[in-house]
Structure formats: structure tokens, C-alpha cells
């Protein structure tokens, strides 16, 4: 029989406000095996922990139940406290009476009753707990960064500087990401390329960094410290090691009518292309969807002109398998598609553009070589209307948009407005906004300059309708402060489209078993205290994939993320989790159900000889779990039809005991 101590935490008023903690402690005293029960204001505090330690010593406790917050918060705290006085840390159970009880109940009676039930279940479980010892696993001292935008580059550079090898996997032909497409950057207005491209070059030259551009992650196996990742190097049809990036093939390529994604389709590129002059790696890529040779078998011009014989039309995708200790997700963002917002006539007029398209129209390397011309007739626009919050801050019922604030639009719109006025003072610039949000160093000053020094018309209100008519865009809008309807004949309308996580993020999250929120942003391990780690150990978050961010925020987070990765890779061994699966060979059918559902590849099969009940010998196929690889997720235990597979610390019996205690 266990000697169990119950410790009920008030969590200040967090628990005690809705749960009668004294009564919970009193009620649980009557449970079988409970020899000590008490309550305390802050059980996680030094004195709270001492209370537990003293009780373990005085009452010779063999099991501890702490009724407190989620085990994710303080299970480790209490386990350590127990271990410090010689009790096996896995004899400690947490009953979560905060998140699962006090925070969701308003009524004291209901909250208290449920807290007692949860405590009872934990006591029932402790009765079946057994001491467990954690094993150790080695750490592969290599990091993988998925995404080669500014976030991924910065994280990779910082990790590499600390002396650890890093691989960057980037799905497009070059690293650089969205920042490479930007013109100037707020609030200092230095040119994006001028500050980004040196970093891209640095990444390429840093000997600890290995860039896999035009590659994707196909499969992730393993766990923190020991990930095994399959990387698909997509066929460029160009031998990367031979190509010098001279660009002769791109000039000679007869297929020149391919929409140029780098300029968001506002001009064309050739079928063999280098996305932009400063691309890293500077290697051409053949777009098989447009290449005449790939489609018809005739042409081959690029191969003729290439001086180094780098063209290889028969190149195949190549799969690399690499081992990593840590994985950084830096998959970034995209502007949402604005076509569904019919009121802004984006699909009807080429002069309605998104902010990112406007960025390219302003850029010296853009489709207009930096001269602001409207796309329809290549004339200089004289009246430009900027619309903020297109798809951001939408009502929950609005299915077209997002509920969140995209954070960057206020600032870049101020930048666009300011730069437009500076270069073309004859232009009238209107900005329609719900609120102007400019927290950040030198941000509000920047916005005020746009209004005060550059004479941008900031109007509080939304644009209701844009109608293309006789070469103009008729803009109907409301000015909420003046309480009047406005009709503006604009030459261009620029939509500040909301940002959303890149579409590749969701399948990646599934591969990584990393969680996401409803908007497909990766969730952090703790929103305040662990903002760059994902709840999945060994997976870290960098940049927009975690939430909307501007460049300064992204770079800070990228470096913070690198610090966490370096902290992990600096360790030689990680203490494992003893709560792993194990198979009872006598019950195992060898059916492979567990092997199929195991996300970590921890289960293998072998034929073994057994003495059967009738004194014969039989060879049976049975499962074996590799405890170093098993993460204790428990998928196998529920897939196993005979109940041969069980989990230490969460055995089927323990769970049934909890259910029985709850349903009593």
C-alpha cells in the first residue's frame, strides 16, 4: 500500500477563488492510502516545496499528489523537489485543478466538486505508479533551418558563428525570402537589398552553413537531439556545382513568356532563370512547366550556349537523409489572396495592386526599374489610394479575412505613402485606416513624418467600393471623423493585404508533430516565457511562422531562437523520458499495428522462440520498443488489439484506475 501525501495549491486566488481548497484537502484525506493532506498558498514557491519535502520525510510518503496547475507548468518543479529528498520523481502526480477546473468554472460548489474528483483520480493513479529511471541519449550537433528568409538566415548565421554546422532548406531557387522583394525598410528607409544581400552572401560563405536551395523537407523522424530528416533536392535540371551563374542561358532561352514570380507576375522571365541578380546560390533553374525542351523534346538552346556544360535535362529529384539535433522552422508568410474581396476590384483592374506589388513597382530592380508607373497604361499615377487592413482585423464571422492584426501594414503603408510623396510630390496620396498602430522604436515618429512633413492624407474610415471606370478607379469611402462620404477618382489603389503563414507550414507541422493555432501560425511552448520554442522538444520557431512580425522583430526572434538551439547543441547528452512504451511478448500477436502508428519508428519486430502453455516451442513474431527512440506518445498502446503494448507511467491500468475514480 502506498503512503500518499496530497498537496492542494491555492495559486493565490487563481485556484482558491473558485475552488474551496481546504475542503479539497479535507475530502482527499479520506481516500485510500492518503496519510497526509494539506493546502498552501503557493505550492511552487520555495516554502511550498519545503512543505512537500518535509512531509515526505516526516510521513515516509511513497507517493505525492499535487493539486495545482497544468503539469506542463510545474510537474518538473515538484518532481525535482521529491527527488531531492530521495523519492523517485515519477511517484509524483499532478491533478490539474487550475486550467481544467478553477479557470473554467465560475461556481465554487461545482469547481470544488470537480477538483476533488480530479484529486481522487490522481490518488488512484499514484497507487499504481512505479519508480522509473530516465535514460540518456546523445545529441547530434547539427541544426536544420527550414526556410531561407531573413529569419532563417539570421538563425543559421548565429548558430554557425557559435561553431555548429547548420543546413538551410529553402524551397525556392534562392534564399532571401520576402525581404529580398522589398524596396526600402521602415523606419530608417535603407534599401532592403543593401542590408539583406550581404547577409545572404555571408550565409553562403560561412563554412558551417550548407544551403539546400530549391529543396523541401519530405520526412522527419526521431526526436530532440536525434532527428533524421529526408530532404528532397528538387531537380533544377542544372548541375549546381558547375553553373557559374553567368546568365547566358537565361538570355538565349527562347521561352520568355513565363510570369516572373519574383515580380509577382507583373513582368515575364525566361523558362531558365535566376530569380534576381543577387540570388544565393547564383545558379540557374529550368522551369519544367515552361521549358520547350522539357515539354516537346526540341530546343536545347541553353545546353548549346552553356560554356561549362551545366545543363542536365534528365536530372531527377534527389533525396538526402541527414541527422540533426535541432530543427528551426522559419517558413515565413505570404500576403493573402485579395481576389475574394470583390469590393476592391483587384481582379477587375490591374491598377488595383497589393502592397507587395507596389513594393516591386517602386523597386529599382522591379518591372518598371523603379519608376512608379501604373500597370494598365504605364502612365504616372497622380492620385493613389492606400487601403489598410484588407483581410486583417476581420470579424470572426467574415470568412474572407483574418481576425488578427498583421502588424506590419501600418508601417509599410506609411513608408509607401512617404516615398511616393518624396519622389513624386505632384501625387495626391490617401491612406484609409481603422487605426494607425505604430508601437516600436522610432515608428510613431516615422508615421508622423508621413502626415506632417509629407502631407499624406490619412483618413479614418474604410473604402467601401472601388469601381474601374474610364481609366480611373472610382473610390467610394467614408471619413468617419468628418462623418462624410468621399468620392475619389484614383489612378491606383494599393491594398495592404493581411499576412498569413506559408501554405507549406501545415504539412510541415504534421511532420514535426508541432502544434499550430487556428490561423496556422506555429504555437510557442509558452506565449510569454518560451516564445521561440515549439511545445515539441527540439523544434524552434523563427520569424513570421509564429506570428506577424516586422524585420526588427524577426531578426531579434531569429537570434533568440539561435541561442536556444546553441544551448541544446552545446549539450553532449539529453536526459530521456522514462515514460516509454514496452511490449509484453507473451501477449504480442506480431500484427504490426503498433509499428504502423509509431511516429518515431521506435518499434521493430523479430521472430523469437517461446515455450507455449502446452509445453511446445513456437516461433512467434513479436514487437520490440527502442526506449531511446520512443517518446511515450502512447499511439501504440491504443492501436494494440491485445493490450500487449503498454506505457510506463501511463499504463492502461493506471488510466483505467483514473477513469474508475472519476466515474465512481
Amino acid at each position, binding site marked *: 500500500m502506498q503512503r500518499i501525501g496530497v498537496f492542494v495549491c491555492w495559486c493565490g486566488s487563481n485556484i482558491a477563488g473558485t475552488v474551496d481548497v481546504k475542503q479539497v484537502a479535507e475530502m482527499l484525506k479520506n481516500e485510500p492510502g492518503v496519510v497526509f493532506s494539506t493546502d498552501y498558498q503557493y505550492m511552487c514557491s520555495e516554502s511550498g516545496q519545503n512543505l512537500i519535502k518535509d512531509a515526505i520525510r516526516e510521513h515516509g510518503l511513497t507517493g505525492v499528489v499535487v493539486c495545482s496547475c497544468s503539469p506542463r507548468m510545474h510537474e518538473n518543479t515538484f518532481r525535482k523537489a521529491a527527488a531531492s529528498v530521495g523519492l523517485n520523481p515519477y511517484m509524483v502526480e499532478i491533478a490539474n485543478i487550475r486550467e481544467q477546473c478553477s479557470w473554467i468554472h465560475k461556481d465554487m460548489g461545482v469547481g470544488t466538486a470537480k477538483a476533488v474528483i480530479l484529486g481522487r483520480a490522481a490518488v488512484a493513479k499514484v497507487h499504481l505508479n512505479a519508480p522509473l529511471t530516465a535514460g540518456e541519449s546523445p545529441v547530434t550537433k547539427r541544426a536544420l533551418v527550414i526556410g531561407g528568409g531573413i529569419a532563417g538566415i539570421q538563425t543559421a548565421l548565429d548558430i554557425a558563428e557559435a561553431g555548429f554546422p547548420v543546413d538551410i532548406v529553402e524551397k525556392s531557387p534562392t534564399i532571401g525570402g520576402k525581404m529580398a522583394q522589398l524596396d526600402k525598410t521602415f523606419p530608417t528607409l535603407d534599401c532592403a537589398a543593401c542590408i539583406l544581400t550581404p547577409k545572404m552572401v555571408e550565409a553562403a560563405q560561412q563554412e558551417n552553413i550548407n544551403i539546400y536551395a530549391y529543396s523541401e523537407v519530405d520526412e522527419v523522424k526521431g526526436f530532440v537531439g536525434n532527428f533524421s530528416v529526408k530532404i528532397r533536392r528538387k531537380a533544377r535540371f542544372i548541375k549546381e556545382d558547375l553553373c557559374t551563374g553567368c546568365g547566358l542561358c537565361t538570355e538565349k532561352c527562347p521561352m520568355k513568356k513565363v510570369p516572373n514570380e519574383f515580380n509577382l507576375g507583373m513582368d515575364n522571365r525566361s523558362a531558365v532563370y535566376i530569380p534576381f541578380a543577387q540570388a544565393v546560390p547564383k545558379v540557374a533553374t529550368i522551369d519544367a512547366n515552361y521549358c520547350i525542351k522539357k515539354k516537346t523534346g526540341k530546343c536545347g538552346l541553353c545546353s548549346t550556349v552553356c560554356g561549362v556544360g551545366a545543363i542536365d535535362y534528365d536530372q531527377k529529384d534527389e533525396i538526402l537523409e541527414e541527422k540533426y539535433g535541432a530543427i528551426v522552422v522559419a517558413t515565413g508568410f505570404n500576403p493573402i489572396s485579395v481576389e475574394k474581396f470583390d469590393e476592391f476590384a483587384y481582379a477587375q483592374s490591374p491598377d488595383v495592386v497589393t502592397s507587395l506589388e507596389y513594393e516591386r513597382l517602386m523597386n529599382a530592380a522591379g518591372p518598371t526599374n523603379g519608376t512608379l508607373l501604373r500597370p494598365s497604361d504605364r502612365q504616372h499615377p497622380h492620385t493613389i489610394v492606400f487601403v489598410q487592413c484588407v483581410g486583417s482585423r476581420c470579424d470572426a464571422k467574415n470568412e474572407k479575412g483574418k481576425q488578427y492584426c498583421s502588424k506590419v501594414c501600418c508601417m509599410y503603408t506609411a513608408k509607401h505613402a512617404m516615398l511616393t510623396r518624396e519622389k513624386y510630390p505632384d501625387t495626391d496620396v490617401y491612406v484609409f485606416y481603422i487605426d494607425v498602430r505604430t508601437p516600436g522604436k522610432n515608428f510613431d515618429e516615422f508615421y508622423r513624418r508621413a502626415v506632417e512633413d509629407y502631407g499624406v492624407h490619412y483618413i479614418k474610415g474604410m473604402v467601401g467600393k472601388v469601381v474601374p471606370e474610364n481609366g480611373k478607379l472610382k473610390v467610394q469611402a467614408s471619413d468617419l471623423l468628418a462623418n462624410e462620404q468621399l468620392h475619389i477618382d484614383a489612378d491606383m489603389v494599393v491594398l495592404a493585404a493581411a499576412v498569413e503563414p506559408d501554405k507549406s507550414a*501545415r*504539412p510541415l507541422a*504534421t511532420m514535426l508533430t508541432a502544434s499550430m493555432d487556428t490561423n496556422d501560425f506555429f504555437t510557442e511552448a509558452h506565449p510569454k516565457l518560451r516564445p521561440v520554442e515549439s511545445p515539441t522538444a527540439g523544434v524552434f520557431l523563427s520569424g513570421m511562422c509564429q506570428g506577424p512580425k516586422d524585420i526588427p522583430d524577426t531578426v531579434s526572434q531569429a537570434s533568440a531562437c539561435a541561442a536556444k538551439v546553441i544551448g541544446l547543441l552545446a549539450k553532449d547528452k539529453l536526459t530521456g523520458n522514462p515514460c516509454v512504451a514496452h511490449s509484453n511478448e*507473451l*501477449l*504480442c*500477436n*506480431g*500484427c*504490426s*499495428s503498433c509499428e*504502423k*502508428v509509431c*511516429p518515431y519508428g521506435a518499434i521493430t*519486430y523479430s521472430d523469437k522462440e517461446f515455450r507455449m502453455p502446452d509445453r511446445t516451442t*513456437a516461433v*512467434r*513474431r513479436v514487437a520490440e520498443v527502442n526506449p531511446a527512440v520512443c517518446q511515450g506518445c502512447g499511439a501504440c498502446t491504443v*492501436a494494440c*488489439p*491485445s*493490450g*500487449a503494448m503498454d506505457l510506463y507511467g501511463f499504463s*492502461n*491500468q493506471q488510466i*483505467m484506475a483514473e477513469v474508475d475514480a472519476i466515474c465512481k
Partner: protein
Amino acid sequence: MQDRMIARAKELLADGTVNRVMGWQKGEFTYDITPAVFHTAEELDRDFVCNDFAAANVSKYLVKESRKEGRILAFLKPCDSYSFAQLMKEHRVLRENVYIIGIPSWGKTDFEKIKARGLSGIKNIKDNGADYFVETVYGDEVTVPKYEVMLDRCKDCKSKKIVVYDELLEEPNGDVIENHRFDEVARLEAMTPDERFAFWRNELSRCIRCNACRNVCPACTCEKCVFDNRDSGVENKAAADSFEENMFHIIRAFHVAGRCTDCGECSRVCPQHIPLHLLNRKFIKDMNELYGDYQAGADPDTRPPMTDFRFDDCEPSVVYERGGAK
């Protein structure tokens, strides 16, 4: 057909391809036929039978038989072959130790249905093609149309195709066929939860926990069944209360979910006539609707939806949304 089966079995015994034969054995009457293993030509001539009452699915026997010395010949009906393929997938049978001859099946007969016509003391049933000529010890002589007394599972036959075999007794192989096997499930789904609960409580209340359904089920081949395992916490021979008898069947349905080939043996052998196959069919129907059509045992390679995870799997909330009648 029976003669051809015996002849071919003798050939395979004689040339050493197999050392025994899995089939069906004659009983005292036409209708009490049991699965059996035959070792010699003489045994085959004397006892081997394959008629409309040879309904038993013999695949499950091959779990043990395929692990014995030498190769065994097995005659598999289409539905038996599905069970066998599923067992192959689960590594429960050793394919190389079984020589399979696929035999066609035009539907087996439910002896209970003949009895249900008020006939008792049946001493002989003659096969007249489309009808049976039934004679009783009381001198009754009745003609019964075959289709009317066919097993329900055969009326709803899902496939005449033999999915795994070494040779076919008759070419060509049959096809998967259109069927209405989910109609009854749909009827239950349309009930209110209370009506449905009442339906099942009523059906399951007749259960005597004889374990026939489990023992005959070709998906239930565990080395040790959870219901026989003291450590499982659900071990019991007889239901201690009326809820437990419900639990037995529901747990069993969960255990065979994604693995049940819908062979219908559970309902066929139930002495209390509980329509147990409906529980399994509900799972199959749900899985088809949630994860796309899947037939357990249709081929040895595909992964059952319950042990497969895909990016496009439906979210758990969908299950709540679709629910049943509210």
C-alpha cells in the same frame, strides 16, 4: 463442385504439394457441417463435404494450421479469402505454408431460417436446384425456395471475388458487387439516440456470453484475448451486470475496427440471434465516410484507416458534427 474439390485435393496430397486439407466435414445430417482437417484420400472420400450448409469461414483455423509442419491445402470462399488476406496483412498466417484453391459461393443457407418455418425434427434436406425438399421425422415434406432461406450476409454479399489464391476451382474469378449492406445501419442511424440505445439494449440483453462470436471471428486471433487477461481489467467469463454484456460487444467491435472484413460469422454463429454484424458494419460505414472507401482484406498491402495517418484525415470534431440523429 464437391467432387472436383475432392479430386483436386487428392492430386495435391498425392504429389506432395500439401500434406493435409482444410475443408468441411459431414455431420449426422445434411446441415450440421463443421470445419475439419483431412490427412488422407480415404478421409476425404468418407467425410469431405461442400454444400450450401458449409458456411463456416475456415481462415481463422489457418492461423494455427499454417504454423504446423508442411503445407496445408485450404479451400477458400470469396469471403474467407478476404479474411485470409487480412490475416496475412497482420502477419497472423504464413502464406507460404498454405496452398489456396479459391472456390465460388452463390450464397450459403441459414438452417435456422428453415427451422423457423415451423419445421422440427428435420432429418433430410434435398437440394433440388432452386429449392430444398425438406423431410422431417414426423413425415412432413416441404419445399422451400433457396433464396428465402439464404443467410442474410449472403443476400447482402459484397464480393464474389477471391482476393488471394494459388489456383481457382472455376475461372473466371468473380467480381466485387453492388450491395445494400449498409441499409440496415442507415436505419439505425436515423433513430434518435434513445431509440437506438433501446434497440441495442434489447438485442444485447439476450447475450449469454458464450463467446461464440469472438471464437469464430477471423479478426479475433489475439494470442490472449483481453477478455481472458486478468491484467486487462475487463476479464470476465460471464457478464456481471447488464452493462457489461453491452461493453463486451462494443469493445470487441472497437478491437476489430478497420480489420473486420464483414464476413458475418459473428451473427451466423450467435445462438441468441443478435445482429452483431451491424456493430461492425457501422464502423465500416463510418470509416468509409470519414476516410474514404476501404475494404479490409481486399488486398494485402493497403493500410487500414485506423492505423494510418494522413495530412487530409478529417479532424476529430467532424465526428461530433456529423453524429447521428440528434
